[in-house]
């Protein structure tokens, strides 16, 4: 679109004053949602923000580094249960969140090792195996899953008599902004560039001096760190953990969110997360219709806009930049 002349320009979120103003206005409007929106929107909003963190993580792995993983639910479970057990042991929220992310990241680093030899669908199956194994461990080892009753997690206590839903919404929104900003910085730094090089041609990337081992392991570690944080936030939000929430279907949902939102695009991940949360929410009255509409939406998006919602967003912006000329 634009000619980027310096590293600082590459890191900018918006290039023109108008764009910057709109961006700030939009973010302020979202931050002020508790004061102008309906109360039930807060719950969906919090869900979208926490889901977006996981989808960004998955997009870093699938979209940027080109490593297909069907084991995201495993990282999600590791993050959620680490967080849950730490909270029960009395750890404060930020510490538990960080450790949950690190635990999932470490698991991701280990799962990354098969990726050094496997590609495409073969890697997908290896990661699917990881997801299944984690699920079966949590479903069968009662010491980890808390048995039949599940694992209860204490609610957050908002400071200064604030409404809890508002507090949770604002906290999750702030965390979402933090992780999104980090992701933008990652993808426009050398880390993101090694990921893209690795995706486009691993042999060529290696010839250009990219350390493939390090790049692949890093991609898995970062992505699963994000997913672990998502799991922890989800655990906190639901206040209750059961292994059933972490089956294969959950990994596939991530996948759908990434593709529908737009591969290799951070803002696309956010759109994808909103799609994956809000479409079922909007049609929640017709239970059988949810998968049909979800599936039909996927077909429509994929056939008419292969780049996903991020592609549609880009085209809209381009249209209005030239308006009324075209």
């Amino acid at each position, binding site marked *: 679109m634009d000619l980027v002349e310096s590293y600082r320009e590459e890191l900018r979120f918006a290039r023109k004053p108008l764009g910057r103003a709109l961006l700030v206005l939009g973010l302020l409007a979202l931050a002020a949602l508790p004061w102008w929106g309906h109360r039930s929107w807060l719950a969906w909003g919090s869900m979208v923000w926490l889901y977006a963190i996981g989808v960004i993580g998955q997009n870093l792995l699938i979209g940027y580094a080109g490593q*297909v993983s069907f084991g995201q639910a495993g990282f999600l479970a590791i993050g959620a249960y680490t967080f849950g057990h730490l909270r029960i042991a009395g750890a404060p929220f930020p510490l538990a969140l960080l450790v949950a992310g690190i635990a999932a990241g470490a698991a991701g680093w280990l799962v990354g090792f098969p990726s050094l030899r496997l590609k495409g669908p073969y890697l997908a199956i290896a990661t699917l195996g990881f997801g299944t194994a984690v699920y079966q461990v949590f479903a069968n080892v009662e010491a980890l899953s808390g048995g039949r009753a599940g694992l209860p997690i204490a609610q957050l206590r908002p400071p200064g008599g604030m409404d809890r839903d508002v507090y949770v919404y604002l906290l999750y929104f702030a965390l979402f902004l933090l992780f999104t900003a980090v992701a933008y910085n990652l993808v426009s730094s050398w880390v993101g560039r090694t990921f893209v090089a690795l995706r486009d041609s691993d042999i060529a990337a290696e010839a250009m001096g990219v350390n493939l081992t390090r790049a692949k392991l890093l991609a898995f570690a970062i992505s699963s760190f994000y997913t672990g944080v998502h799991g922890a936030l989800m655990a906190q939000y639901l206040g209750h953990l059961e292994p059933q929430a972490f089956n294969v279907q959950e990994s596939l949902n991530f996948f759908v969110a990434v593709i529908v939102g737009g591969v290799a695009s951070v803002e696309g991940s956010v759109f994808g997360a909103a799609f994956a949360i809000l479409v079922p929410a909007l049609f929640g009255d017709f239970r059988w219709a949810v998968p049909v509409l979800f599936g039909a939406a996927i077909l429509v998006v994929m056939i008419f806009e292969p780049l996903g919602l991020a592609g549609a967003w880009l085209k809209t912006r381009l249209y209005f930049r030239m308006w009324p000329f075209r």
Partner: protein
Amino acid sequence: MGNFLQYTLTGLAAGSLYALVALGLVLIYRSARVLNFAHGDMATFGTFVAFSLATSGRPLWISLPLALLAGAVVAVVFYFAALVPAQRKGATQLGQVILTLGLALIFQGFTVYQWGAEPTSFPFPLSDTKVWKVGPVYVSELAIGTLAAAALASLLLFLLTQKTRLGLAMRATSENLQAAQTLGIPTRQVLAFAWGAAAALGVVAGIFLAPVLMLDPFFMLDPMFKGLAAAVLGGLNSLPGAVVGGLVLGVVESLAGGYLAMEFKSSLAFVLIVAVLLVRPEGLLGKEFQERV
């Protein structure tokens, strides 16, 4: 020793079903490089069609072929209505995989709407409680039927791909699409046929699985992932690999469940697959097409 033989036999029967699912997946992956996530749900749909026809009093020899046909028609329609337009728009391979995922969701919703989410039992002439004792092992009627059906389907598929003109066209298309097109092979029809045949294979697997598991809209989810794992184990573009992978997976799972831990039998099977893939990254019999830099 008797236990070992019994576990192996049970594993072979389960593995032959995995092989049937894997054959369908491989057939599509070979021709279109697309992992078909709707495979399980198309099979569920076909099985429910068979269920409806069978319970409304039609004889089995009419309802089974009709169910296979229903599955095949749906797959061909999907190919022309969704996959071809998406390819024209330049969808990536990942995008095409997601399309099949969308199709899977549509099927799931439709099946729940049409037949309800309650598990029902499938009326099937072969029973799994009628057993014979052969030497030290027990063999159920259903296990024999399953093995025979899988063997027959593999044989037919082998004859189709190796001995007929259509099979030659299919192999040419999977080898190099553009070259096949240039040589006058109607690749689109060939691919559509591959989709139809794969869906029919899936329905066969579904019909033989339904008496073992209860019939509900999600009963193919687990077998479908097992079939996928079997296909990968054998090598995703090798049809014999799918059969070998399915049987190996079934036997290993059954032995692991019998001797080690029942709850972890699928995890143990996946551990084996990852171990095999680390030694042979393209599966036991697979040979991926090499890419050039």
